[in-house]
């Protein structure tokens, strides 16, 4: 919607001071957008794809040549210049797509779930490239459902069914929620989970291997004791610790409280 692809059902959106409905064409020269699915031409080579994009943005002839050379160098695609885009590996495709999206040096770059199809090593490299881009002054907007990716961002907003439910830096968000987070390490996490599920004060339980992450509203006094006693009553051996909330907890907390009609 912010790129001017979808018409807002209500209200007005401005990106860099431009109305997304009325000035979407002018806006497109200023922003870059990397689609979720690889959307360059698979039957064209790497070079031809970049050439095409540079012409579509109507860059001057010399500018085109300089930018394409720069990008091939920066994104480590020099060896694949003559290779068809369709035969590239996932990571190479992704680098090519990012190169194409930044070719016209946009001030804002929109990335739609950019790492949904690449392996962890490529993901790491990809984020490094993004940080380099951010250092050069490009604003980058990423949508993702990986919380570890969200953690790398300078500021983030959590959307739940199209409604923004929280925003801030990762640290602010962690401190901002009205829940305490406890980690329960049990030998039999399944039984521990079942026994805790009966306790009404607990908002959510997430199992991570042998550990359980338990969210309890801050109003509940002595939550640690409550968990320990609940577990003891059902004769489950477990260690309970209070921990700092991570983004996943934040996400669960804010989306949960919205559904229950409570403030986060």
């Amino acid at each position, binding site marked *: 919607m912010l*790129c*001017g*692809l*979808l*018409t807002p059902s209500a209200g007005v959106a401005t990106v860099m001071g431009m109305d997304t409905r009325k000035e*979407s*064409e002018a806006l*497109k*020269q200023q922003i870059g*957008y990397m*689609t979720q*699915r*690889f*959307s*360059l*031409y*698979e*039957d*064209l080579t790497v070079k*031809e794809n970049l050439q*095409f*994009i540079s*012409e*579509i*943005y*109507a860059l001057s002839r010399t500018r085109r040549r300089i930018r394409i050379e720069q990008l091939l160098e920066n994104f480590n695609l020099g060896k694949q210049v003559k290779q068809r885009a369709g035969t590239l590996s996932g990571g190479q495709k992704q680098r090519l797509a990012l190169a*194409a999206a930044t070719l016209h040096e946009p001030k804002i770059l929109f990335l739609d779930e950019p790492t949904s199809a690449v392996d962890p090593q490529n993901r790491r490299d990809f984020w490094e490239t993004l940080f380099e881009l951010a250092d050069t002054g490009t604003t980058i907007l990423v949508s993702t459902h990986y919380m570890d990716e969200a953690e790398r961002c300078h500021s983030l907003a959590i959307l739940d069914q199209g409604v923004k439910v929280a925003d801030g830096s990762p640290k602010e968000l962690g401190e901002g929620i009205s829940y305490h987070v406890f980690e329960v390490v049990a030998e039999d996490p399944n039984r521990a989970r079942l026994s805790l599920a009966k306790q009404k004060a607990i908002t959510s339980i997430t199992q991570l291997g042998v550990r359980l992450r338990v969210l309890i509203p801050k109003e509940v006094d002595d939550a640690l004791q409550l968990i320990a006693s609940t577990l003891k009553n059902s004769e489950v051996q477990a260690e309970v610790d209070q921990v700092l909330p991570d983004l996943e907890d934040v996400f669960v907390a804010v989306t949960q409280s919205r559904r229950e009609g409570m403030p986060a």
Partner: protein
Amino acid sequence: MKSFIRMFAIMKKEFLQLSRDRLTFGMIVGIPLMQLLLFGYAINTDVRNLSAAYVDEADTHLSRQFVSDIGASQVINIRQRVASVQQLRQLLDAGSISIGIALPDDFDRRVIERDRQAVQLLVDGTDPIILGVAQQLSSLPVRFDTQATPPSSVNLMEVRNFYNPERRSAVNIVPGLVGVILTMTMVLFTAVAIVREKERGNLELLINTPVKTPELMLGKIFPYIIIGLIQLVLVFSLGWYFFKVPIRGSQLDVLAASLVFIAANLSLGLLISTLVQTQFQAMQAAFFIFLPSILLSGFMFPFDGMPAIAQNIAEVLPLTHFNRLIRGIVLRGADIMSMWEELLALGVFMLVALTLAIARFSKRLD
């Protein structure tokens, strides 16, 4: 200026993709070649060698003479002699013959007295062309050599065959085929052009760039105009080589008429492309246009013979107008300006289709 750069970018990209797509490349040359040879040789309204059988109950010198005369015309090919009219009927019913010839036992007397028909032709009338042939056969003279010629009845009507004195079907078929081939390939190519980008996800990229809809549309049309012209040259060269079809009018007129026609078909294809969701639907829609074009445009059947409603439908199809233009120029040597209405009709069709396509295409996802 920027518009031109963007349009050229789209054109260049289309050419690159075309040169990599072997199947499409094959279609550009393969479809005209195959259709021309197939239709050029197969569609033949100058009928010869129809299967026939006869029953000769008279079995006289004259009747045998008659049967051999009618066989010598080459219009029919006499397969067998049967014993009775009933057997003739059976063969006709079974479809093993198209024409049956029945000579009664008083054949000689009837020929001499000339008061009743001496020969009966039993014809499979389901095919009007065969019926027409039978009617021509009925004018064959039947009489004894020595018999006085009946007072010659001067034929009051004379047929003079203009433009195609040798009565070759190919002369009519080949120029018509240019239009059919162009309709098929041009509509199909552009009909899938935008849907293909949609299906492969390329459109999501394109609509995020500053490229404008008319630039995209025109950039997609131009490469195919060149391909259309290649096909045009190909069909006429082959038509001249294989079927000796001449171009009587000016070649420039042929080019002008074809250009407008190609552009009209490409616009129609683009319009289809903006209306459908998948390449498969695009192909179905292209054939929906293609079939009436072949049947109603005057390519197959004379336009004037069709009922008014079919004529009205045909007037909407670009091929109808192109057929009149191209046959006029190529076969009658007509000047293109003497048929300016047809040219105008094609031009209007193109503008309407292209405008609708541009209006229909939205650079938004919703």
